[in-house]
């Protein structure tokens, strides 16, 4: 049976949903093993067992986080050797893709990014050109490295749990030599909202919010949604660049995308057109966003959104 190595990087107190999805996919492909980095807390160790991890690897060096990408790729390459894995699953974040990229060169392994589904034979399905095409791709090498987008599968615990014993993987001493060092790190204030690229619901604003994201934030909090923005809104400085959705920002595929005051030019569409349901509110009936909206409202977002928020809160009691 194929061994499938899942990379889980510094989860803190609980595994992210994206990691649970990787473990679920790993079980559908073969025997799951975990290459772990960071402090392994009890709750996380228990969750790895519930999701059927047969083997658990930890690095011999603790300071991998002080460097960018390189040493983590070296650790994973050693973990692949130790575990005999033929498939490696990594999160589809920017760092995840870079780790996968360097790992691919170290192993001589094909890397496929932006994967949304994996067949039992390892064939990957991915969306390209901002979701305008779906392709079927495979690695032609003995080992395949796949980075999988969040919300690709529903996480499911294993039928039979496990209690894997950690094994140490020797990280080569040369791993940190040619790597960039992190010399200072400042945490940003937590918004309390879900992470944009993982969120089930996204409320996004553009030029039409005219500097006031208040009504969008109220609606987002009533729905448990993340806040996004078009480039016009981030360039205007109304909201941080991290919130930008589109060609030069993040790509999201939530269950529900509520677009408010965004015209929906092609660059913005590129970041959100794979959303399951799109709702658009815009004053201008000619906005391109209405061509792709499942439900469109020609109206003033400062009237429509507060009324919707009030109605949701009323229904929730």
């Amino acid at each position, binding site marked *: 049976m194929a061994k499938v190595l899942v990379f889980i990087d510094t989860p803190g107190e609980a595994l992210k949903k994206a990691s649970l999805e990787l473990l679920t996919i790993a079980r559908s492909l073969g025997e799951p093993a975990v290459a772990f980095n960071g402090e392994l807390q009890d709750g996380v160790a228990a969750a790895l067992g519930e999701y059927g991890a047969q083997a658990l690897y930890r690095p011999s060096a603790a300071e991998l986080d002080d460097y960018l*990408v390189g040493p983590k790729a070296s650790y994973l390459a050693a973990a692949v050797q130790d575990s005999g894995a033929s498939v490696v699953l990594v999160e589809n974040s920017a760092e995840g893709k870079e780790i996968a990229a360097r790992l691919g060169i170290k192993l*001589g392994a094909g*890397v496929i990014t932006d994967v949304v589904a994996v067949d039992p034979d390892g064939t990957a399905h991915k969306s390209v050109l901002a979701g305008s095409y779906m392709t079927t791709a*495979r690695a032609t090498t003995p080992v395949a490295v796949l980075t999988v987008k969040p919300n690709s599968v529903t996480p499911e615990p294993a039928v039979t749990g496990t209690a894997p014993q950690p094994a140490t993987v020797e990280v080569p001493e040369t791993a940190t030599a040619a790597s960039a060092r992190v010399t200072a*790190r400042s945490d940003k204030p937590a918004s309390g909202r879900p992470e944009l690229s993982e969120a089930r619901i996204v409320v996004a604003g553009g030029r039409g919010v005219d500097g006031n994201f208040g009504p969008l934030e109220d609606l987002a909090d009533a729905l448990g949604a993340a806040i996004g923005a078009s480039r016009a809104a981030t360039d205007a400085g109304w909201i941080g660049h991290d919130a930008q959705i589109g060609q030069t920002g993040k790509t999201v595929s939530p*269950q*529900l995308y509520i677009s408010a005051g965004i015209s929906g030019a092609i660059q913005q569409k590129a970041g959100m057109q794979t959303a399951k349901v799109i709702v658009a509110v815009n004053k201008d009936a000619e906005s391109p966003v209405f061509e792709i909206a499942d439900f*469109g409202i020609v109206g003033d977002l400062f009237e429509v959104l507060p009324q919707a928020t009030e109605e949701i809160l009323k229904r929730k009691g």
Partner: protein
Amino acid sequence: MEETLKIIVLVKHVPDAQFDRHLGGADNTTDRSESILSELDEYALEAALQLIEARGGEAAGNKVIALSMGPAGAVNAVKKSLQIGATEGVHLSDAALAGSDAAATSLALAAAVRHLGADTPADLVLTGMASTDGETSLVPAQLAERLGLPQVTFASSLALDGGKLTARRDGGTHADTVEADLPALVSVTDQINEPRYPNFKGIMAAKKKTITTLTLADIGVDPAHVGLAGSWTAVDAAEPRPPRTAGTIITDEGDAGIRLVEFLAAQKLL
């Protein structure tokens, strides 16, 4: 007196994102017939120009080399880079490169970077934050791995101090200050600067600048190691996603917020 700088900027010609983009051919590769210099590469070029200008520019012996790999049309990205201000241009072009995936592309680019550094190695390899077409974002990291260089990606600021670089990276939950020894590979975001436009003087000056065309033989790469045959991934099928169609559009008559919630409830999204 500071050392002179030699910076290689990777530039790419990409299908214009303003238009519909297509995959085609038996190997499902991207149709680049309507191509431009990738907007995101202009930030890398600008960053390179600012770095050499801070050290006296070309007159002081500093150099910015624009390097592009691709078929005949790719030379347009190099020409545009020269008009904006690159010192010289290099076009890596070989029929055997067609269909290369990220691994094969990075192999050829690594050989080209080594070739261009044969006399004096480059201090920096700069790229944009992503290509606007393939979007795999693998090539910069794979190039760094092949060259054994530290990589600093998504830099929103970049400064050099002697043989070291310092950069800022903004992540979703934290911002990092990072440091790396030169030579290094850096990708920059669209927050790092405001790229300049080519002016008349630049356009005229570009006509006198050299564009060197390199083939795989020039850089010592076996054609079997690139292209479709040398790639480690294969795309077996490509299906255009069915276009989204417009749904219900209403005009607010004072109750649109409530009708929105009714729609969400009917879709089981509350």
